[in-house]
């Protein structure tokens, strides 16, 4: 790998990270707007989430006084991890060509893990229960996620995202890859805290759940990193599903990619918030059971892929 490519990777990664820092909250705002319109409300402006974050960043950090030391540091860590993931995972620009599935997956999970450690260290029962639910969901969705990744790796004999994508190739159609695509999109939906899977912050019983121990700037950091992670998860799935190389190389290709990617990402958010609006909330048991079914499908995908289908 030459020096120019390295430089390009760094620059592209930085651009991606900066773009996501702003665009992820905006996407959240769009989602809120869509949901409001489905509920026949006018709803807040799409900038609302950004306003909220700006306000929260203005307030000094607040944290549960009885929590462990780690809880104070966690927001910073999760934010840093989110930014790292943004640098690694190709989103707007095809940044790092050697970002492999494992690293991407681990970085995406790491953000959640860093936050869950914190919410379990709080002295507030709601936060702890929320953390338990978060962890359980993570374990269950990781079953599906690992299955999808393993099947992709087995099917194309590589771990590099850019080599594996698009995982569904019309010239050589593999059933396992179709399952994997489905599983991936479901996991992305679940991991980005949508109903009916949004149980770790379930307002009726947990009164905010995992976030409850934080306020002000630390809350802003936690929320912001969660949004970035959500956007990244979706862009990771998009990277794998969409045939980016068909867009061609060079500047026009990149420009085209930026446009297409933005459209796809926003579209994904619109669809997700529409689904979000027409579902009730699962109990943890139901959510896990649903994910278990998906997990079985993903196991099937792995087995199919490993025997070459």
């Amino acid at each position, binding site marked *: *790998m030459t020096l120019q490519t390295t430089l390009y990777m760094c620059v592209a990664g930085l651009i991606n990270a900066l773009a996501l820092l702003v665009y992820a909250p905006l996407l959240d705002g769009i989602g809120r707007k869509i949901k409001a319109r489905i509920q026949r409300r006018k709803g807040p402006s799409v900038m609302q989430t950004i306003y909220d974050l700006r306000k929260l960043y203005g307030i000094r*950090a*607040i*944290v*549960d*006084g*009885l*929590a*462990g*030391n*780690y809880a*104070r540091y966690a927001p*910073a860590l999760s*934010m*840093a991890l989110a*930014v*790292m993931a943004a640098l690694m995972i190709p989103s707007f620009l095809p940044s790092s060509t*050697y970002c*492999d599935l*494992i*690293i991407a997956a*681990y970085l995406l*999970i790491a953000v959640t*893990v*860093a936050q869950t*450690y914190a919410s*379990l*260290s*709080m*002295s*507030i*029962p709601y936060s*702890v*229960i929320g953390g*338990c639910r978060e*962890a*359980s969901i*993570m*374990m*269950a969705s*990781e079953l599906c996620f*690992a*299955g999808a*990744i*393993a099947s992709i*790796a*087995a099917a194309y*004999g590589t*771990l590099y995202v850019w080599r594996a994508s698009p995982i569904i190739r019309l010239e050589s159609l593999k059933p396992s890859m179709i399952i994997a695509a489905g599983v991936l999109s479901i996991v992305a939906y679940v991991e980005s805290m949508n109903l009916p899977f949004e149980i770790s912050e379930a307002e009726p019983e947990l009164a905010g759940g995992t976030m409850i*121990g934080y*306020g*002000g700037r630390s809350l802003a*950091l936690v929320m912001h990193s969660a949004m970035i992670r959500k956007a990244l998860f979706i862009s990771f799935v998009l990277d794998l599903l969409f045939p980016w190389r068909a867009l061609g190389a060079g500047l026009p290709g990149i420009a085209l990619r930026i446009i297409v990617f933005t459209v796809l990402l926003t579209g994904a958010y619109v669809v997700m918030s529409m689904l979000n609006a027409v579902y009730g909330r699962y109990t943890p*048991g139901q959510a*896990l059971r649903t994910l*278990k079914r998906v997990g079985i499908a993903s*196991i099937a995908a*792995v087995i199919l892929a*490993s*025997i070459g289908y």
Partner: protein
Amino acid sequence: MEIAQLITYFLIAPVPILLIPVLLLWRKRVLYIGSSLLACISSMIILVLGVFGILVSKPIVYVFPWFNIQMSTHPYWFYFPVILGIDKISSYFLIILGIVSLTSSIYMHGYYASLKRKGEVTRLVLSYPLLILFMYLVIIVQSLFWFLVFWEVMGFTTQLLIASSMKRGGVVSAMKYYLLTKGPAELMIAGGIVSIIISSGDASYATVAHVLKSLVGHNLLATIVAPGLFLAGLMAKIGLIPLHSWVPEAYGESPTMASSLLSGAASKIGVYMLFRLFMYFLPPVFVWGIVLSVFGTATLIYGTLNALRQYDSKRLLAYHSMGQLGYVVLAIGASIYLASYQPCNALLSTVAAAAALYHAFNHSLFKTLLFMSAGAAEYALNERSLDLLGGLGRMMPLTSLVALIASFSISGLPPFNGFVSKWMIYSSTMPCSGLLPVCGFAAMFISSVTSASFMKYYTSVFGRPAFRSPGEVREPLSMVTAMMILACLCVLFGVAPFIPLMMIGHSLRGTWLHQPFPQGLVPVINGVALNPSIIIAAVVFPLSGLIYDVAIRDRTRTVPGWFCGAKKIVARTMPQPRHYFDEYESVFSEIYVIGDTIHSGLIKTGHFVKSILQRKSFVFEAPLFMALLASLLILILLIIGLLQGVLPG
């Protein structure tokens, strides 16, 4: 004089550790300082020897000439000289042993204070140095026969160490260990060794390695029987299912240094022998690849999922060390599988082997560290149940910091060391066909379970508010130092993987892996190998530090938690760690069923142990078992002799 020659004279250097028991004659302070000092020195020597073994090019071998039992000259009869020596692979494990024993010896000094029972210190001081010494000997011995002998003694001392706190639990688990790893397992190892010796005609590693390669394929004994028996025995030692049931008790009940030493070093000796057997003695045999991968996968699934259910800090860690060793064994199996199965990329088999060694090292580091942190918690609150621990984060900031690092490492979070080795395991198992992708998938899924279960461990020990204040708790300097060393190594091995990879690259020479460890695994920029974890570390640590510094540190306002306006005593409203993942366990109960059936079978063994225990103390049982062992050994010899007669070649 050449350095290799020089070192041969130092092979005996760690022996002075045996002086430790003499210190019992002096006052307590002398004993405490002296013993840990001596242990440290000899651990240092072990470490140095290991490093030299890596560095020097020629293998260091030393044969005791005057120790040969000359027998008659019948073709099957042979002689066993004592051969001590250090080659690449053993030096790698010497380094592991050195680091673990060094840190736990430092830790020991602070830990003495929490040994209150009568005679506990004495028993510890008697058994601890012996264990270290014999582990050392088992590693450096180069003859299968003497390996068996030292192995026996090591097992015996291990058992003494486990039972050194004469608590009922400890003694029971010691008996269990005894029954499982001494009774059947030792017999199998003995059988394996004997059949190897018979088929190869010599006991020295060099010859064995040389001869077996030629035999495999057309000699049933050398291909199936010998490795099978050997493997079965080692499985018990490492704690693979179904021979695992001693692990949780032994690690859980024994004093902290014992458990850290056991899971940190003793289990690695099993791995060492496994590695030597399958990577040095035997050529890659497809069947063994499959067997090892399957057993490894089964163990990591079973161990980790059961760890999720535990609420006793040490037992949780014990189950996890089962799981992590499962990863190691899976990697070894994968390496054999890849080497012997054509469609796969042979380069990956090297990666897998490297991953095995790497993960073995990492596991020694963070598991020792975790056991030490659990020991520190026990030291502070004299409590092991996660339900009742808590709030140590405020009282023992350093301990909580290192425990956090260890938890992140074992969960495989980038950029810590666990991540790199796990990453290597996945990237060698996943992108190929057949069995391995399924194993890799299981491994990756399980690593998330690991992280969840360490969320539970860390937060319930160090995170939540304390239930009952332990008064003035200070973390002894020695303990902190020991843990700090390990934590630094965890970070170092994560951030700079090329250090261990360099060692591993050396150690893998002499195996049947032909191409050296590939730099190409990680992207190379202008010839510089660039591992992602370096980048991640370079971004995450400074960035998070910066954010913390700018946004949070000085400006944080701490407020009391919110309980819906019902002000409560915090301790009573906290959910209990033992119930954290109830939902998950009930939904995924199917996975548990298999393990539970195995376990219930092993419960019976436990009852048997109890019945023995109620009759006599385990020590008196030992000779009896030895006699039994010897007689069975002879029996097996006869059987195999007959077998040889029957078999071709």
